[in-house]
Every structure is written in structure tokens, then in C-alpha cells.
């Protein structure tokens, strides 16, 4: 179930090429468990496969089996919010070559206006919300007001909270691995490029860099600073610091999420690399209440233990938990009559909504 031979994919049309992989549309492929879906094949480069080493096939299968094991209703919610590997694609020798994923829906794509005329179509990455309004207008991005920015942030919090609840650490959170649809009728997000995610207790599949520049959590920055000062002969200390630098956990996810929220709310020149939360703090206090503003400060604490849980963010940005300034929540993408409803303390998980206080 978790593997698919390359020859079964049929025709392949190249869509995009990046540093670690090439993505192809497989227009003729149909899968019985995902009727109506279209699929892409992400073929890793030779260098990426070499970096992953012999654990590649097992690691990718782990990703696929993880999703397969989710109860049906949760899997539907998962798929509505995350582009997750569905199958490991194997070559004629049975070696892992890449993964099969759902095609990103059209509404997450943007036609960017080029200076030379013409359009460039690509997924609308969340970082486009960090930029200044004039550049956004010039490139044809739709305007997104503060209320919809908060709803998109809440949607990200919901997706990450769902991943954390399933013991998945997101890992390399950056402005490029969330895409969004700002449609005011239903602002929504999709988590993409989950290659650096890992199920807690296991290693990440690839030995990829754990943090994108300008997104390093304080614990990684501290290790970086020590590494830069280290005597190169001290290999033990080097290994120890590298491990500290590479730390990825739900608390580093929360820190990076807070940076993302701050950059979305206080957008403009310089916002994509800014760590100062003052502007976002003010907007959050005004629009979502003091509790949400306090969450921002706590999430950016240098000490991981001081940071809240993702579900705290989801709750704080819920209209019922705010001062009534937020627009109505987005319509659930999917609901299920038979979903199991896990409970943690007085929190209850509702498919399509995430954690709500019971």
C-alpha cells in the first residue's frame, strides 16, 4: 500500500525544479482511496537521496504509514490542511526515488505580474504576506486586511496544533512552507514541504538543515554563537553544539510560528527578517485581546519552557476567546459525524476546528 512503482505513474509533466527535488504532474494517475484527486510526483535529486542515506526508504514509508494509520475522519482533516506524502515511489530496482502527493488546489496559486509583462504562476507562499503593500499591489497580490490576516494565522495555528497533537514536529518552519488562499469567504492555509517534519521519537528523514536563516530559535542562535567561537580541535564540543543547534521540537515550532504571526501582522519592508514583536503585539492587543498579545511575548521567550502550546494560540484567536473583534471563524473544510473526539483536560479536539475548550 505504501509503495508505488515509477512505471505506474504514467505520463509525467515537469512542474518545478528546486535544489532538493523536481516535481512532476502525473496527469493520468488515479488512486482508489483518493477519488477525484490529482497527483504530483516529487523526485528527490541524487544529492538529496545520498544525504538521506540508507534510511531513505524506511523514513519515507514511515511518513506514508503515519497518514494511513489515522482514522478516516482525521485523515480527511489532515489532508485538508497538509500536503503529505501518500506513497513512496520506487524505481525498477525497488529503491525509493521520491514521493507521491496531492496536487495543490488552484485556489492556492497566484499569478504574479512580471516587470516585462506577462504572468508567473506559482503557489502563494505565506511570506508574501510579510511584504510591503506597494510591492504586493504591483505584483498583483490580493490585499489582505488585518482581520483576514488574523484568520489565516489562526488557520496556521490549527494546522500546527493538529500536527503536534499527532506528535509530529513541523521542524523547518519558514515563510515558504505554508501556502494560503486569502478569499475572505474562507481564508485557509495548506502546510507544504513537510520533508523536515518528524514524528516525535524518530529522526527526520533527510539530514537537511533544521532552520532557515532568520528563523532560527534562540536556542539554535546560542549554539551557533558558541560554535563560531569554538576551538576547531574540540570535536566533542563541536558535536554537542551541533546537536543543540539542530534541536527541533514543538517549542521551537511555537517560536517560529510566533515569528510568522508577527511578520504577517506587522508587514512591510524588513518584516520578513524582523524579530522585534512590538508592532504585532500592538495589533494583536487591539484586534484579539491582551491574552493573544501575551501569547506572542511568551512564544518568543528565549526559554522553550516558557512558550505556550499551539492550541493556546488557536483558542486565543477564536472569536469566543477574543474581545469580539475577530471575524467569524472560517467554515470547517470538512466535518465528520463519526469522528472520535479526544479530550485533554478541558480541551476537546473537534475535526475541522481543532482544539476547543469544552
Amino acid at each position: 500500500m505504501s509503495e508505488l512503482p515509477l512505471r505506474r505513474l504514467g505520463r509525467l509533466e515537469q512542474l518545478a525544479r528546486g535544489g532538493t527535488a523536481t516535481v512532476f504532474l502525473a496527469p493520468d494517475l488515479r488512486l482508489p482511496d483518493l477519488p477525484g484527486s490529482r497527483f504530483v510526483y516529487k523526485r528527490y535529486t541524487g544529492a538529496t537521496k545520498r544525504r538521506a542515506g540508507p534510511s531513505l526508504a524506511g523514513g519515507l514509508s514511515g511518513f506514508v504509514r503515519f497518514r494511513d494509520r489515522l482514522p478516516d475522519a482525521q485523515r480527511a482533516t489532515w489532508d485538508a490542511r497538509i500536503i503529505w506524502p501518500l506513497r513512496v515511489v520506487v524505481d525498477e530496482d525497488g529503491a525509493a526515488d521520491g514521493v507521491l502527493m496531492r496536487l495543490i488546489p488552484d485556489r492556492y496559486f497566484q499569478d504574479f505580474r512580471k516587470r516585462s509583462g506577462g504572468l508567473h504562476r506559482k503557489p502563494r507562499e505565506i511570506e508574501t504576506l510579510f511584504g510591503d503593500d506597494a510591492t504586493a499591489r504591483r505584483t498583483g497580490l490580493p490585499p489582505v486586511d488585518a482581520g483576514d490576516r488574523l484568520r489565516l494565522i489562526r488557520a496556521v495555528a490549527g494546522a500546527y496544533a493538529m500536527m503536534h497533537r499527532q506528535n509530529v514536529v513541523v521542524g523547518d518552519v519558514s515563510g515558504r512552507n505554508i501556502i494560503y488562499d486569502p478569499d475572505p469567504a474562507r481564508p485557509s492555509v495548506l502546510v507544504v514541504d513537510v520533508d523536515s517534519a518528524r514524528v516525535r521519537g524518530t529522526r527526520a528523514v533527510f539530514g537537511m538543515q533544521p532552520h532557515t536563516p532568520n528563523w532560527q530559535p534562540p536556542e539554535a542562535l546560542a549554539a551557533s554563537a558558541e560554535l563560531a567561537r569554538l576551538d576547531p580541535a574540540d570535536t566533542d564540543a563541536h558535536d554537542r553544539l551541533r546537536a543543540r543547534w539542530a534541536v527541533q521540537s514543538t517549542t521551537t515550532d511555537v517560536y517560529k510560528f510566533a515569528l510568522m504571526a508577527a511578520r504577517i501582522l506587522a508587514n512591510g519592508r524588513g518584516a520578513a527578517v524582523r524579530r522585534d514583536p512590538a508592532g504585532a503585539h500592538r495589533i494583536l492587543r487591539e484586534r484579539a485581546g491582551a491574552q493573544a498579545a501575551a501569547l506572542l511575548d511568551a512564544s518568543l521567550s528565549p526559554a522553550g519552557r516558557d512558550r505556550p502550546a499551539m492550541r493556546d494560540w488557536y483558542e486565543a484567536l477564536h472569536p469566543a476567546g477574543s474581545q469580539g473583534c475577530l471575524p467569524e471563524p472560517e467554515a470547517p473544510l470538512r466535518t465528520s459525524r463519526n469522528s472520535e473526539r479526544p479530550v485533554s483536560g478541558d480541551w476537546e479536539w473537534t475535526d475541522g476546528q481543532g482544539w476547543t475548550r469544552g
Partner: protein
Amino acid sequence: MSDVPQVPDDRTLALAFYLLVDVSYSMDGAPLDAVNRILPEVIDTIEESPTLGDVVRFGALDFADDARTVLPLGDLRDVRAIPQFTARGGTSYAAAFRRLRHDIGHDLARLRGEGFQVYRPAVFFVTDGAPTDAVPEVRAAFAELTDPGFRGRPNIIPFGVTPELPGDSLEPWVHPKPGTGGKPMRSYVYGGAGDAATAIRQIADVLISSIVASANSVNDAGAAGGFVPPDDDDLGDWI
């Protein structure tokens, strides 16, 4: 104070790129038409990504008998009318290197004044022929540009856009060279079946890939890593 660790300095690393173009008369026509499509493409890439916009600073110079600053190093989102490269005169590498030395010194001081951390800039140097000035003069200008005492001495990657150039003819103008400290760069001479314009279009692609990779790179200590040179795999037609 509590036992909470303090966050070390994390100033934004600015990535400085220069495009240095030979506009001698032999580049007139299709080659310069292709060069004039580079800046719009780079600007599109920057404008689609606020992160690139916030960290990349880009400048352009041309050279013939003299050298000129075509686009001062800056934030490409501020560029309204995109300047054009037009042909004139001969091929003075010495003028090019001297102008570059002057501009880099001035530009990096300004960026540091704006609060950025700046590493050495990267120069994509596009030419279709050997210099017309005296060799000792070119060497002297290159030595001044790459002087170890000059903090802004750049990484220089020369691209020869005609197959008529001998494969190693641009090696003297690479910096750093292997064995001289720092990650060594290399030169490229087009050896494909296309013309100079085809070669220049490929330079645009690797320039943009290098900008994107540089913005995402980390160094051995895990900090923002700075310049990532072109990938040889993307330059299969080049010697």
C-alpha cells in the same frame, strides 16, 4: 536576571550581488538584448519574495573603454525604470575592476551604516572577449580589487559568452582562486551549440538560483551562510 539565556546578536545578513557586463561593440545586438532581460527577471524574483527583498542588495555596472555604475547597489523593489545596457567602445577590464573596487567600498559602508551585517559581495562578470588594455594594468587593478586588506574583496565568477574564448582564458579573473583561502570560485566559458544570447539567458538562470540558494544557506556554525556559487550541474554547456 533569571537563568533565561540571552539571544545573541542576530543582525540581518545582507547579500550583495553585482552584475558586471562587457558592453563593447561586439556585444551589440542579440547579446545585449539578452543582458537587458536579466534585470527584469531578477527584479521579478525579488518582488515575489519579501524575504529575498529584505536580504538581497543588487547592483549593476558596465564597462567598455571606461566603466559606469548602471544601477547602484540597492533594494530592487525601489527600482522604477529599469536601466538598459547599451554598447560603446572597447574592453577595458582595468576600468571595470577599478570602478567595482570604488563602488563596493562605498556600498558596503552604507549597508553597514544601515545596520546590516555584510559578507563579501558576489560578482557575476559577463564578457565576450579578452581585455583591450595592457595586461600589467589589468593585473594591477585586479590586485587592488582582491587585496586581502580590502574587507569587501568580492567573489568573482567570470562568464565568457562565446565559444571562441579559450576555456581557461578567464581563470586569471576568478577570485578567490583555489588554495588562496576562502571557498574557491571558478570561471565558465560557453561551449554549447547556441549563440551568446543563449549563453546569457543561462547566466540569468544560474544567477537567480544562486541568489535564492544564498538566502537559504547556513554556514558551519549554523548562522546565515552567505553566497552560494552556481551549481556546475546547471551549467552543463559550459567549460
